[in-house]
């Protein structure tokens, strides 16, 4: 494994988005993973519709909450094609599900995997490099005030309340860390990203880890 790796360097990660006051982090997280998986397969990097997942994933609660694995399960079962973000734009509130013609452009998933990697972050490193960005859940209570640096303290495991996307890692310094894309706009944290220490399940980052295949 490399000591430093970031899928952004391969131009397969879309820009940081802003969920505004919609509690749809779970949708932003998995759509980010699908966008990257699609680009890693050699396709154009496309911004796909988060609003479609928020409106149509019947086993979740739209802007009132949801789970990454529940949404992936729904996408896998229904084989719904995610359309471009420009075709089904983000409204920051739950709306009626729009349906599209089967001939319209869209990306469907072929499978997904979701596991608890707590105590096995070394295996997570391999999964990130081999499979693409990982959708994970975290305890983000202390992220309200985060400005930068590597999160090592004030963050517990087993209390996940937020979903984000791991795009890379850096183990070149004294404190190895995950590079994590958030959905609170680019003004939050480090240009919209957070750095989280690797190895101690900080913020519960290894508790629910999903990768998606397209």
């Amino acid at each position, binding site marked *: 494994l490399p000591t430093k790796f970031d899928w952004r360097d391969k131009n397969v990660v879309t820009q940081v988005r802003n*969920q505004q*006051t919609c*509690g*749809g*982090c*779970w949708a932003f*997280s998995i759509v980010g993973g699908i966008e990257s998986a699609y680009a890693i397969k050699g396709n154009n990097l496309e911004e796909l519709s988060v609003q479609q997942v928020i409106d149509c994933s019947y086993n*979740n*609660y739209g*802007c*009132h*909450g*949801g*789970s*990454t*694995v*529940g949404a992936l399960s729904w996408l896998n079962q229904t084989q719904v094609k995610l359309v471009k973000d420009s075709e089904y734009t983000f409204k920051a509130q739950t709306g009626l599900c729009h349906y599209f013609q089967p001939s319209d452009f869209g990306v469907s998933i072929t499978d997904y995997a*979701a*596991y*608890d*990697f*707590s105590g*096995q972050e070394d*295996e997570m490193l391999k999964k990130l490099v081999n499979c693409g960005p990982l959708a994970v*859940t975290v305890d*983000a*209570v*202390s992220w*309200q*005030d*985060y*400005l*930068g*640096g*590597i*999160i*090592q*303290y*004030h963050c517990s495991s087993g209390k*996940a*309340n*937020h*979903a984000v996307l791991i795009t890379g890692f850096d183990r070149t*310094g*004294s*404190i190895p860390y995950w590079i994590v894309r958030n959905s*609170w*706009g680019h*003004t*939050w944290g480090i240009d919209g990203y957070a*750095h989280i220490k690797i190895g101690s399940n900080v913020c519960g980052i290894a508790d*629910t*880890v999903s990768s998606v295949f397209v």
Partner: protein
Amino acid sequence: WGGGDGREEAALRESIKRIRRLNSLSSGDNMTAFYGINQFSHLFPEDFKAIYLRSTPYRVPRYTEVLKRKETL
């Protein structure tokens, strides 16, 4: 900010206290996370949580050695 019932100002004051506490507990090295005023500082933690932290838990199996071996095969 402000202009209402003073709730945002109260939340900001609480944020400043919380930020001081979070920064004081850090080890002091220049790599550890640092905390400060940002776009969420006008919110009480309970409001922040109610708006932004809406991921619901989902129990997933533990990644095991058996899975590792199966994937290797």
